[in-house]
């Protein structure tokens, strides 16, 4: 069937992060829809392709982002249905904290069109590099800030905690206006159940332009309430304490591995009931 949809990531920093494949999809598209981080990046896309249409106009004051994202998806799919090769070019990674690209790809596939996602360098990737933090060191938990507030979570203070879209923390309107000190005070109250309010955290903003430097501002958690926080600001809370050993499981593993050292297979040891072929179990 004619018509396709590719959602590609352009990375965070203009010119620095886009991969050759994503660039090629943009160059060869019939039409490109852009959902990017700033006006410089939009102009850059216009230099790569002659027909770039911004998805920005779908955002609106007092308009739910549920509606905005649905409209973005409908708009991209309308062009796919006309048999065009459509590219959605999104800042960062098109599948990380991004609703419209996932929905658009899923719907295009249901309708029988070719649809694929091409990854990009996300704010998360930049964060690890800029702050020198490794999520593998003590583990890492990621939540969208409002979701973190609205749903009960079991926080592990021995791992890193990253809250995205902290500027919209506690927003119930699903709008585009940043929330304020009152909502952040509630967030602080929630965090204070697991962290002392003097625990040092970071406010992070990735550089979107080669002339910029990332924002990396360290402060105690209690200072969040009145800090300068924008829609693209991320809260990074380093681990509060070292990881707590699990001696019981360590002993069981040692026993298991000593007992049958030479005969052990992944099937016999009965420890890893892990299905690697992703087949559905009907």
């Amino acid at each position: 069937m004619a018509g396709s949809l590719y959602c590609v990531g352009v990375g965070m920093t203009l010119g620095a992060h886009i991969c050759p494949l994503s660039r090629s999809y943009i160059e060869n598209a019939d039409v490109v829809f852009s959902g990017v981080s700033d006006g410089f990046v939009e102009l850059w896309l216009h230099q790569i392709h002659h027909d770039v249409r911004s998805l920005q106009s779908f955002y609106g004051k007092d308009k739910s982002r549920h509606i905005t994202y649905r409209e973005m998806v409908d708009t991209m799919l309308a062009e796919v249905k006309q048999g065009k090769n459509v590219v959605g070019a999104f800042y960062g990674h098109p599948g990380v904290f991004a609703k419209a690209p996932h929905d658009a790809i899923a719907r295009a596939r249901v309708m029988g069109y070719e649809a694929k996602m091409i990854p990009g360098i996300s704010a998360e990737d930049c964060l690890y590099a800029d702050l020198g933090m490794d999520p593998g060191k003590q583990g890492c938990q990621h939540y969208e800030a409002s979701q973190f507030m609205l749903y009960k979570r079991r926080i592990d203070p021995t791992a890193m905690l990253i809250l995205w879209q902290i500027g919209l923390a506690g927003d119930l309107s699903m709008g585009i206006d940043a929330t304020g000190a009152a909502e952040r005070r509630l967030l602080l109250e929630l965090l204070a159940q697991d962290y002392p309010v003097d625990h040092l955290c970071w406010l992070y903003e990735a550089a979107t332009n080669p002339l910029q430097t990332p924002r990396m501002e360290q402060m105690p958690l209690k200072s969040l309430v009145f800090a300068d926080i924008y829609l693209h600001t991320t809260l990074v809370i380093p681990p509060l304490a070292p990881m707590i050993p699990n001696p019981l499981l360590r002993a069981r593993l040692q026993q298991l591995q000593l007992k049958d050292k030479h005969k052990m297979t992944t099937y016999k040891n009965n420890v890893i009931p892990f299905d690697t072929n992703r087949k559905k179990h009907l």
Partner: protein
Amino acid sequence: MMDVIALLEKLGSDCTSLQAEHLQTLLEESNLNEDVKKLIQQQDLKGLANKLAINESIICCAQVAPDEDEPDEDKQPKDDEAINR
């Protein structure tokens, strides 16, 4: 001749271009007007956006927490519709 966006792309993709002497050469070759060159040297993005009438008020919120009355909004796609093949 290079315009501002092409210059920024060059700065983003060429590790040597942000070194002072290379940046100076790039700016000289660019034929950009002196005001713009100065803003780039000063890394004044706000000034550059104003000068070039670039919209800075772009919204980049990307995810929504599900409404209680819209429980299906943020469900992961059923089956394997979203898996790249």
